[in-house]
């Protein structure tokens, strides 16, 4: 599995895609960070916090779209599946590699809290929990992206599927407040954005952590299942 993580991770960084995504991310987030600079306050504005998650809607689908499509195209799928590695390890390896790229992006974005630390005394604990929320959100998003890329061999289609799914996921709390009733309540409970905002406010909720991690696990599991079914029925 480590072999797959290493290869996929390196592959992201041997083409310009990861660099461009990270560079654009920093550039665009700077536009929102200006709010904090202009107001002269050592904390992330709510605009900044929500834009961070909004950016992920675009970054993750691009990051994950080629996960399985590429192997299908180059025939390396055969290599992976005929090596002494379980399918679940292949999927998990690819998931962790994509997560690794996302973590590099997160690490690059630490320039923002760094500025706050240099020029002020921000509430470190709250900054920490915002980042914890961001990382968890990224892990959830990546699992959905990986899942989408297992559904189709077309990269563009995979990216669109994951974007639409992520967009739906993030609008759960809006949809929930419109729907009301039991379904509204359920959607509210499932809303990652609400959980992310809680983390950003400085609340660390163990159940949210468990929920988000298990959501990611379920989607990685479903991805394994999808690929397995493909093998079983079509070969």
């Amino acid at each position, binding site marked *: 599995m480590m072999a797959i993580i290493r290869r996929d991770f390196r592959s992201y*960084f*041997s*083409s*310009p895609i990861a*660099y*461009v995504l*990270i*560079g*654009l991310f*920093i*550039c665009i987030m*700077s*536009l929102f*960070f*200006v709010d904090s*600079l202009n107001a*002269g*306050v*050592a*904390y992330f504005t709510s605009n900044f916090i929500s834009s961070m998650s909004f950016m992920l809607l675009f970054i993750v689908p691009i990051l994950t779209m080629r996960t399985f499509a590429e192997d299908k195209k180059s025939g390396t799928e055969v290599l992976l599946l005929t090596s002494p590695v379980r399918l679940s390890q292949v999927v998990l390896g690819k998931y962790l590699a994509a997560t690794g790229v996302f973590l590099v992006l997160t690490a*690059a974005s630490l*320039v*923002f809290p760094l*500025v*706050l630390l240099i*020029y*002020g*005394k921000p*509430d*470190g*604990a*709250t900054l920490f*929990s915002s980042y914890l929320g961001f990382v968890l959100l990224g892990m959830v998003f990546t699992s959905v992206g990986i899942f989408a890329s297992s559904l189709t061999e077309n990269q563009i289609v995979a990216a669109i599927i994951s974007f639409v799914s992520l967009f739906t996921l993030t609008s759960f709390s809006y949809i*929930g*407040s419109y*729907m*009301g009733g039991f379904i*509204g*309540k359920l*959607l*509210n*409970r499932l809303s990652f954005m609400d959980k992310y*905002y809680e983390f950003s*406010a*400085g*609340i*660390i*909720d*163990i*159940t949210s952590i*468990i*929920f988000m991690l*298990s959501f990611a*696990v*379920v989607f990685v*599991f*479903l991805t394994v*299942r999808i690929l*397995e079914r493909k093998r*079983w029925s079509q070969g």
Partner: protein
Amino acid sequence: MKKTGLFKKKSFRYGTYSFVITAVVIAIIVLINTILGLSDISKRLRFDITQDKMFSIGQQSIDLVKGLDKEVEIYILSSESSYSNLLVTEVVDQYVVHGNGRIIGPHYVDLDKDPTFISKNFDPDQVKGINSGDIIVRCGNNTRVLSNQDFMEISYDYYGGAYVTGLKVEQAFTSAIKSVTAEKINTIYFVSGHGEYKSDDLSQLRSALSLNNYALKETTLTVPVPEDADVLFFPSPTSDLLGSELENLLAFLERGGDAVFLFDVQSTIQDLTNFNEVFSRYNLQLNYDLVNEFSQANYLKENWMIRPMVYMSDVTRNLNPDQLFIYLPMSRSISVLSTNKDNLEVSPLFGSTDDSTAIDLNTGVQSMGPFFLGALSQMEIGTSNHSRIALIGNCTFITDTYMSELGDNGSRYIVSTLNWMQERADDVMIPAKSLDQPPLNMTEQSRVFVFILLIAVIPLVIIGTGLFVWIRRKSL
């Protein structure tokens, strides 16, 4: 052929096997999350790591809810999905967590969907003017309504500009819980019949009083003061008491009743003989004059807009006069009589400086300060009872008109005065949580520098690295 069938089964078995495993794993994960989500454990698994503990409650509140022997219900008048005040929901959760099951809720009630909820479940008098988004705290028949204003500490600067300086969510809930669970609620009767301010003019003060666990009622002195009255409240009478009214008042005070008198400057000459008859028993006297302040720091724009000196007393000990600015617009002075009475204890509340004058509106004679603008007096009745009064030469500072412009600090003084009268030591004294954000100390220059660094230099370096790596590898 039998053999083929067997193998068919085997491959099928492996397919089913992985499907079952997947189903089981997902079921377990869903189950764990459902259990965690539905049980109250989840509330204990939340940790407020903010520096100021924005979402936590203090020991005083924890002790209060731990010691509850009655159930308190909390209703949030909104659908759960659209209520987004994290601060409130977190704090309510804290009460629930520490409440040993005595704090129940929050129940979300969407008034759009259930418009009769209020009329069906609550005494309309107790929830007057309730709005969507408000919160009801109820214990038995006692009800308290909290609205968003109750959660904000608003300060006023020197020039009267209003801004939110802090959050007092915990304070509001703790006093609400305290109030609805209290065995006995002190009752304040607002006296009318002599041109006093109407309750509509004093709604902010009244809500502050309710918030501090006082029941508010109305009466006139033409009838004897009701038995349940603890305090009589006179919001600036403009004419004197009749003889029978004086008798009713004195009877009330003699049985240990307390009273708060506030008098604005009068435009017409009014002799308040009967009132002064009462005050003189307490060694106090209300003067018919207008005080002007000339000490720079003690007035706002106009000399009659006095920022009074606040004397240290039982009433003001728990307040911080430096923070709690008040202005007394157009005040009259209070004199302390020197008659020697053993059973009396007089203490000043507000005053003007040496650099002030008082013009007698009757005679036009001007006298020099300092003057008292408010005073407290306590009369011992026998060995175990006492009657306390407060006399303040201004009433404008507690009206809605004033408060909406210059802040509601006046009601803090009134509440503190009433608490002193009712000997309430159990005051809710939870400091508001500061909203001050840590500042960023940057010069304009470094701001521009950092901005360019973030928006252009760093991204370009990253993308440049990518292109370099890519081009170099491309030709390998």
